[in-house]
C-alpha cells in the first residue's frame, strides 16, 4: 500500500496536477505570489507542515514549490519526509527542469513568463497596464500604464508557457498583446508536467531535494 502522502502546492501549479494526483495523495493549495514575501511563504509552509503532522498518518509531504526566493529554506517535518523539486522557482518546474530554465535564462534573462494561471488571475504586466491587476485597480489609466511600463522596463521578452492546453486561444492572444503593448519579443514555449508527475509518483532522483524526518531543508541542498 502506498505511503500516506500530502502535497502542499503553490496555486500557480494546481492546473498542471489536476486529474494527475493519485488517490493516496491529499492536496493542499497555498496562495500564489508569496515568493515576493519569502518569510511569509516560509511561515505558511511550516504552519501547513505542522498542521499535517498533527495527523501522524502522513509519511511523506511533497512540496510543489522550488527554492522560491528561499521561502522553502529552513522547513522541517518531525515525522514525515519532505520532497521538493530542485529548482529555483515554478518557471523551471513548468519548463520541466533547471536545465530548460537555464537555457531560457541564457537566451533572455529579462523574460516575463505568462501561464494560464497568471492570466486567469489577472496578473502580469498587461493586466497591470489595463488597470485589472489588484495592484493597479485603484489608479487612473495613465498611472496604471506608467506603473506597468516601469515594472517591465528592463524586460526584453514575453513568453507563454504551454503545459497542456490544446487550444491556446485567448490565453496566447493575451500574451501576444502584452508583447505588442510593451514592444517586446514574443515566444511560445512548450512546458511539461513531467517534473510534477515525478514529484507525485517518483522516482525522487537528483531532480529533487529530499529531507528525511527531522532534517531541515537548507540552501546548500539545492
Amino acid at each position, binding site marked *: 500500500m502506498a505511503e500516506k502522502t500530502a502535497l502542499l502546492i503553490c496555486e500557480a501549479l494546481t492546473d498542471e496536477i489536476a486529474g494527475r494526483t493519485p488517490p493516496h495523495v491529499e492536496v493542499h493549495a497555498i496562495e500564489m505570489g508569496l*515568493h*515576493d*514575501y*519569502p518569510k511569509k511563504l516560509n511561515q505558511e509552509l511550516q504552519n501547513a507542515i505542522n498542521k499535517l503532522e498533527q495527523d501522524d498518518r502522513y509519511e511523506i509531504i511533497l512540496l510543489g514549490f522550488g*527554492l522560491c*526566493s*528561499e521561502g522553502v*529554506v529552513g522547513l522541517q517535518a518531525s515525522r514525515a519526509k519532505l520532497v521538493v523539486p530542485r529548482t*529555483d*522557482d515554478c518557471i523551471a518546474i513548468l519548463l520541466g527542469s533547471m536545465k530548460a530554465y*537555464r537555457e531560457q*535564462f541564457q537566451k533572455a*534573462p*529579462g523574460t516575463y513568463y505568462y501561464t494560464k494561471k497568471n492570466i486567469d488571475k489577472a496578473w502580469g504586466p498587461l493586466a*497591470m497596464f489595463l488597470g485589472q491587476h*489588484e*495592484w*493597479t485597480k485603484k*489608479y487612473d489609466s495613465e*498611472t496604471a500604464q*506608467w*506603473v506597468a511600463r*516601469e*515594472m517591465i522596463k*528592463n*524586460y526584453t521578452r514575453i513568453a507563454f508557457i504551454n503545459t497542456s492546453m490544446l487550444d491556446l486561444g485567448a490565453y496566447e492572444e493575451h500574451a501576444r498583446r502584452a508583447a505588442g503593448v510593451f514592444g517586446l519579443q514574443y515566444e511560445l514555449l512548450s512546458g511539461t508536467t513531467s517534473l510534477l508527475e515525478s514529484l507525485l509518483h517518483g522516482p525522487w532522483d537528483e531532480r529533487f531535494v529530499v529531507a528525511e524526518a527531522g532534517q531541515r531543508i537548507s*540552501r546548500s541542498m*539545492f
Partner: protein
Amino acid sequence: MPILQNLREAVIKGQASQVKILAEAALDEGLSPQDILDQGLIAGMKLISDRFRNNGIYVPDILIASRAVHAGMHVLKPYLIQCGVKLPDRVIIGTVAGDLHDIGKDLVVMMLRGKGLDVIDLGIDVEPEEFVQAATVHHPKLLAMSALLTTTMPVMAATVQSLCLKGLRQQVKVMIGGGPITPEYSRTIKADGYAPDFRLAAKEAMRLLGYPAAG
C-alpha cells in the same frame, strides 16, 4: 510644520505635481532644503515603506511615491548643491549580472543620495569584474549589490571573491540586499552588511560607513 506634513502626505499619495508645488512653497517659507528633503520627502518614503506589505500597499504604490520624491528632489537640487549635507564617502551600487530587477536598488540609490553620499550607480546586469573595475577607479568606501533572483545571488559571492583576489576587500565594505537575500546568506559570502528593504539599506549603509545611528 504643516507644510512638511502636507509634503509627506503628498509623497505617500504619489502626487508628483503637488510635491513639486509644496517643495517650492517650503523653500519660499524659508525652510532649509535639507529639512525639506529629510523631514518631507524622505520621511514620506519611510512612512509608505512602513505600510508596505501590511496595508494594501504594493510595489506600484512605492514606485509612484518615489516618482513624487524625484519631482521634489528636482526642485531642491540646485539648493542642495549649494547648502545641503555633503558626505565625503563614495558608494558604488549595482544589480548583479543576469538580474534586471532594479526597483529596490533605485530606491536605495535615492535614499543614499538623500543622506548626502556620493553614489555611483552601475545599473543592472553588473558583472563581478565591473564591480571590481569600478572599485579600482572610484575608490568607494562601500559597495552595494542587489539581486531579486536566487539564480543570480551567486554573483554576489563571486564579486566578494574577486575583490579579495584583487586585494581590494579590506578597502571597501560590502553590503547586499534584495528579495531572497537573508542575513545568513550575507554571512555565508562574507559580506559586511545586509538590509531587508530600501529604508533599512540606508541605515545599514550609514552604520557600515561609521556614522552614528539616526532616527
